[in-house]
């Protein structure tokens, strides 16, 4: 159960930060839905794992949390990105692009025959 989430840990952090950055404060369910939608349901995560990621981000001070009311008037905990979180997002995004660019180029190499 844990393997997938561990592999995804860094990626998940990046996705959550990006989602909060782009869409403003969201609750855990909202974040999970958003990520599923954007990945066009290709990334079917166990929704609970999102909270393990949120705890880490909270502890690092990259996001903040507060209780509020949802659109259906349910009590829900809302997460928002902080200034430190934005800086972190920039760093991680740049990192990601460098890595994915490298891997992309690597994969485009033609096999030598």
């Amino acid at each position: 159960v844990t393997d997938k989430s561990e592999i995804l840990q860094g990626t998940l952090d990046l996705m959550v930060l990006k989602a909060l950055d782009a869409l403003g404060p969201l609750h855990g369910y909202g974040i999970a839905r958003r990520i599923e939608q954007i990945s066009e349901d290709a990334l079917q995560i166990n929704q609970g794992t999102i909270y393990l990621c949120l705890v880490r981000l909270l502890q690092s001070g990259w996001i903040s949390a507060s209780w509020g009311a949802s659109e259906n008037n349910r009590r829900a905990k809302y997460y928002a990105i902080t200034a430190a979180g934005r800086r972190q997002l920039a760093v991680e995004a740049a990192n990601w692009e460098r890595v994915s660019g490298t891997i992309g180029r690597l994969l485009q190499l033609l096999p030598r025959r």
Partner: protein
Amino acid sequence: MGARVRRALARLRAFVQPGALDRDFSEELESHLAMLIDDNLRRGMTREEARRAAVVRLGNPASLRARHRDVAGLPHAERLLQDLRFALRLVRKDPWFSATAVVTLAIGIGINALGFSIVNAAFLRGLPFARADRLSVVAWRPTEGRRQSLSYPELQDFRARSQTFTGLSAYLNGPVNLGDDMSQPERVRATWLTADAFELLGEQPVAGRGFATDDLREGAERIAIISSGLWRTRYGADPAVLGRAIRVNGDTATIVGVMGAGFAFPDNTDLWMPFVPTARQRQRDARVLLAFGRLRDGVDRAAAQAEMDDIAKQLIDAHPEVSRDLAGARVDTFTEAFVGGQARVMFLALMGAVCFVLLIACVNVANLLLARSVYRRREMALRAALGAGRGRLLRQLLVESAVLGVLGGALGLVLTTAGVRAFAAAIRDPGKPFWIVFDVDYVVFAYVAAVCVLTAVASGLAPALLTSRTRGGAVLDDDSRGSTASPRTRRLSGALIVTELALTVVLLVGAGLMIRSLFNVSRLDVGIRTDGLTLMPIRLLGPKYATADARRAFYDRLESRLAALAGVEAAALTTAVPPFDGGERLIEVEGKAPSGRRFVSIASVGDSFFAAVDVHTLRGRSFDAVPANASAGIVVVNDLLASRFFPGEDPVARRIRLRRPGAAADGASEPWLTIVGVTSTIRQGSIRDRTPNPVAYLPYRQSPPQEAFLLARSRLSPAVVLSEVRREAQSIDRDQPVPSIQTVREMIDESTWHFHAFGNAFGILGLMALILSSVGVYGVGAYAASQRASEIGIRMALGATGRQVLWLILRRGMRQLAWGLTIGVAAAFAVSRVLSGMLVGLGPADPVTFVSIAALLALVSTAACVVPARRASRIDPVDAIRQP
């Protein structure tokens, strides 16, 4: 970096208040689930379907909560806390087991920490001055012996050439007779210090001033600084004491300062004066000063030692005529300089002994834990089956023994505190340096904490390793009735018992040797009648007693006045009160070639000495029958000297010559002495002599000493005798103190004090070891017997007799005892040699001690084995087999 710190703090916060965090998360999951269900309902699912799908989507809430807690809090600390809670529950659940283990550890740790407190005070703590670890004592290293003082010119040479010390001061110690116009003259310990000594120590008077350079000029007005104690006791804490005139050995001086409470540098001093060298003390061979300095920052002792050795060699080369016996320099700490030799060996032996007691306690607790482990095999198997790894089990078991260790340590600290207090009250060694204070300080506290941890590991590790060795399910299906200790457990338990017995033998042998020494000391036959015999120290000090004639005149007048006192049967001066002597000499008999052991003890005595100690001359005359003006050149010897050096002859009227050991060998300068009488043998030597010494008694008039004792035999109380003697002494010299009186019995007891103290200490330690190890032997025996109850029942049902069963149980214990005794005796032979310097009248391999100790331990351990074995042999077989 910032994120990492923030994360750690957040985890700590979550760990401290786990409840709030859990509730918050549960609520969040609840709301998440509700939203999922809402969505699912909207998609047209039934309520039941919607709920099930939502739970699948979210994941198992219990597992999520557990993982959340791991991420949010401190999972390791949390598990440790869990183990701790469990361990405490176990302590309460099994009160007898816990009490036994805790008390055993408390005794072990308490006694060990008591020993450490003593060593800490004597060796580790050092002087109570700022950065006292930088202070060093500097002295010559002679070719023979430990340490030789410096002369004033040498001090100046060392000071001028040294780069490793920031300063080099020196002192000279000695008692002085302190007089003033207020109260009784009094003898106090005085120290003459070079001018910069107080600065070097970092101490100054709390009232008045320290030494100024002007005070060191020759012919400057004499000044003195007094201790806080003297200020209180003699001057009633009078603030007007500054400027008061006193007489020190008859010379007038002015008090200019009072030191703070507790300052008594270097050695219980009450009076300090500036050291102004006399003409004699300016000479290079007048070595009277003990130098001390402060090491420069960044210089270690080895570098200082090397430098001082270099300087010493230069000085030896430059002044060979006064440096014949010198090899180099010595740089020591104050502790090394003051608490050396015998005391060090004694204290370290004590420390070794208390470590043995602690080890025995650890072994006992290890065995207890091992015994319990068998009962807990099912528990361990269950834990393993539920997924606990070996590491997890090990940690839990070690936490359990740590809890026992900490509880034992806490109780032990109480024991230590009480013990240290009792020891400090019992110690009455007047030679103890002022900075040795026996108490429990933070160093002792830290030591106890460390010992607790060590104890927990030492007693818990082996049992924990064995107990945690389990396969899930292996024991679960096992019938508990058949569960006996595994061979591995039994072997370990046996080895522990053997170790314990061997340690006990070593400790008991040490205790036995010390106690037998004490016994030998207390039944020492001095050879004199001690009842009604008192002694008073007299010292004639200062320039007015610089000549032999002045001293002779004082003693003569004092003796004749005391002879006239009513109630005093006899009074005499002596340089040595039995059982001590006044030095050793090499004897030479006129007309015989010197050969063999020629050492004899000497004592200078007054005319009535033999009457005072109630020993009668056997042959010839005593001194009182000789006219005072004819006392030159005569000697009285004891019959041991007579029989050794004049076998089969009459020594009376023969002549002998006495030479100082180490003096020039020709000895021609020593005068011939005519033997006028022979007395019975009085023990005069040292407490540790196995046999009496040959003694030569000289009339003190030949060379009146500066220091002597006045012996008086009287039926009056010592206090009355003292006041009478004081009055007479002060009518001759108003500044002459007679500081104290002691009965000879008290003096002997006091000089054998350390034999009593260490004999009792070792005795108590030995007893503790014996009790602990027999409790251990008994416990293991009883436990083994109870474990084998059903086996024994079957055996008896099949016809085994009680005797056979008894032997079955006993055999194992006897084998362990044999091994324990063998190993223990061998180890004791090897170890007891360190005690040899402290033994009186016996050697370290004393057969009586070894045999009786072995017999004692064999007896006690056999009893401890037999009791449970007998109980086992009386089992009712039917009950035993039916027992679940």
